[in-house]
């Protein structure tokens, strides 16, 4: 039987799980936000990694077909998207129930009626629009969590309502969401994946019925390949999917790390410092790495490693979470945009506003003040991003500077503006020939390092 290894990074903001095989190849990734109960978060991440692993194995099995037939690729991609949607849908249904309970216990009379009506409308609105975004948009790749996705839509709808309902509606949301986040919704992979395929078949059936030139917006050429063909693909995939659904993904060993690692139900020897894990993970992906910068939700670590991936020195902030990822979260909130829109907006700036405090709590006030004196949104954002990077630079300096190659990890590395300033300042101060690495999996480096330790100590 094949051996798999699990690494769990229970971070302050997000919990990540990585599954690798016995050659250190990543085959499964799972991530969720740690707003909820730690155990639940870990479970969600782990289960997601296993689902993801099944899809990976499926893709590996079908490697040849996928190579030669793009429609296979498209089909699997769609299945995955619908699969994600169905997971989302289950939680949304759960949230809807919770909404009702909350309204019941909080409001009465006419108000209750009205709010209940609004909620019905909003929930009705959200479901289909999300399905559309999963299927035809790129929501699946956006790395957004349930809470973020829902709250974005919800806020939009609430803002359309009359002012007096703003507070109550927000309250309903705040009161309900935490419950749902704290619950583990288990899915049967097989069931869900079949359901996804049925749903897809319905969708494709529509294409079949459409006239040849009617494949309007959103229906691209790739999709066209599926036309008249999907049934065949469905049939040949069914067997494989059944196989991966039943496959026993045996985790031979696991290692936990991250901010909350002490709370993981793991034996002590399976718990590793996140500093070592981040460094080890980053080094595994980029073997020439000598300096690692990790900016997470509420800590920033600067780590120096040697040629073996061993940490030689490190420095991290503590006591004060100013200038970490959470700060960006608050800023996004204040600007009412989603986290992944922050960076692109900041990059548009023509100059950077000078930001004095990177204290998360003060962020909103400072932004308001700057907006009032007429500063542009993008310029303020640029300043905020730069301020974060300045703090990181200071930690880097304390850990021993930047040595070639430099790898940037953690959730914040996904933010293009932060990346831009980091690159600028690193190159300017530590030499233009420094190679800067960022990986699409950068947020998973800690979990990856953990999984690798798990493999090595097995």
């Amino acid at each position, binding site marked *: 039987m094949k051996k798999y290894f699990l690494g769990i990074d229970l971070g*302050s903001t997000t919990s990540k799980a990585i599954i690798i095989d016995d050659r250190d190849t990543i085959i499964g990734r799972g991530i969720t936000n*740690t*707003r*909820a*109960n*730690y*155990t*639940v978060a870990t479970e969600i991440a782990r289960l997601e990694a296993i689902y993801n692993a099944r899809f990976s194995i499926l893709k590996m099995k079908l490697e040849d077909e996928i190579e030669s037939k793009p429609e296979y690729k498209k089909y699997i991609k769609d299945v995955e998207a619908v699969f994600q949607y169905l997971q989302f849908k289950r939680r949304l249904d759960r949230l809807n129930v919770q909404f009702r309970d*909350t309204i019941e216990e909080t409001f009465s009379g006419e108000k209750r009626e009205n709010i209940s009506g609004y909620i019905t409308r909003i929930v009705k609105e959200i479901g289909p629009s999300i399905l559309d975004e999963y299927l035809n948009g790129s929501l699946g790749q956006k790395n957004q969590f349930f809470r973020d996705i829902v709250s974005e839509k919800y806020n939009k709808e609430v803002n359309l309502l009359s002012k007096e309902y*703003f*507070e109550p509606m927000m*309250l309903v949301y*705040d*009161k*309900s*969401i*935490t419950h749902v986040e*704290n619950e583990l919704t288990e899915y049967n992979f097989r069931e869900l994946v079949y359901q996804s395929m049925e749903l897809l078949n319905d969708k494709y059936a529509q294409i079949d019925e459409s006239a040849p030139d009617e494949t309007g917006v959103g229906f691209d050429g790739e999709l066209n390949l599926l036309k008249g063909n999907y049934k065949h693909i469905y049939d040949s995939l069914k067997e494989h999917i059944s196989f991966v659904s039943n496959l026993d993904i045996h985790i031979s060993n696991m290692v936990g790390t991250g*901010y*909350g690692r002490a*709370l993981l139900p793991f034996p002590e020897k399976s718990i590793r410092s996140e500093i070592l894990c981040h460094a080890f993970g980053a080094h595994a992906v980029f073997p020439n790495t000598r300096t690692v910068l990790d900016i997470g939700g*509420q800590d920033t670590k600067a780590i120096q490693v040697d040629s073996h991936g061993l940490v030689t020195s490190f420095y991290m902030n503590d*006591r*004060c*979470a*100013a200038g*970490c990822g*959470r*700060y960006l979260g608050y800023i996004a909130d*204040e600007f*009412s945009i989603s986290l992944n829109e922050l960076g692109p907006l900041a990059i548009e700036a023509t100059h950077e506003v000078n930001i004095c*405090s990177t*204290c*998360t*709590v*003060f962020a*909103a*006030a400072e932004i*308001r*003040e700057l*907006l*009032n004196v007429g500063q542009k949104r993008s310029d303020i954002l640029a300043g905020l991003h730069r301020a974060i990077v300045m703090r990181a630079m200071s930690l880097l300096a304390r850990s021993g500077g930047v040595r070639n190659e430099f790898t940037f990890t953690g959730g914040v590395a996904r933010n293009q503006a932060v990346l831009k300033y980091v690159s600028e300042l690193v190159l300017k101060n530590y030499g233009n020939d420094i190679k800067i690495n960022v990986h699409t999996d950068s947020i998973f480096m800690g979990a990856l390092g953990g999984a690798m330790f798990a493999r090595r100590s097995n």
Partner: protein
Amino acid sequence: MEKNIFTFGVDVGSSIIKAVLMSYSDNPFIIDKETEKIRKRNPGMVADQLIDQVLERNNIKYSDITYLATTGEGEMLQRKRGHFYSMTTHAKGGVFLNPGSLTVVDMGALYVRAIKINELGRVLDYKMTGQCASGSGQFIENISRYLGLAIEDVGATSLKSVTPETPSGICSVLAETDVINMVSRGISTPDIIKGIHLSIANKVVKLLSSLKATSPVALTGGMAMNIGMIQAVEELIQESKLNLEIRANADSIYAGAIGAALWGGFRHFKLTS
């Protein structure tokens, strides 16, 4: 003083704007008052609307106002005649609301300011929190949001606590993580809220003791409307044997605006005499 005049005080806070219309004389009194949340709008605009709203409601024209004074972040208002610094206004307003107070503590959204005054209401000494937002009202707002509590209910919830659980560090952000952790450990909401209140109250009491505050102490600002907060401060004062009597008033949140309106009247007569 010959006759009564209208004065108006506007306190532009970081999240809430407070407006007070007063009749100023030897015995000044409040005619009307109102608050409005800024909620991501332009504070200047919100303040202007709020002023108009209050004037309209009382059938008074702007030109009838003898002195419109601002405080807080209100310097940018076009219609102001004068601006006073927050501690000056909170001292005045705090004593107006709680006569005889010798210390005023303004517990607002971002800062806590402790002001010591003498019998004449003169500011003697003061301390305020600085660059770190641990111990601010914003912090309570964030946590209560996470816990799904309306800010108005926070105080009452806190009173239900039996064994409060305080967050470990001072940082509000890290404390949030602590709170999440507490929730997952099954700590009850009242206990968490109380713990947060205690950690903020701790900052307040520290300010009071470093100021060597004198009793009675008036609490002002938005957090002074929070009964849980008042109680937490009282408990810690007792614990640290400071021997201070605490007072608060239902209109606490207006203290800055009231102070501004009062100083406006004072300046008017001083300038015209």
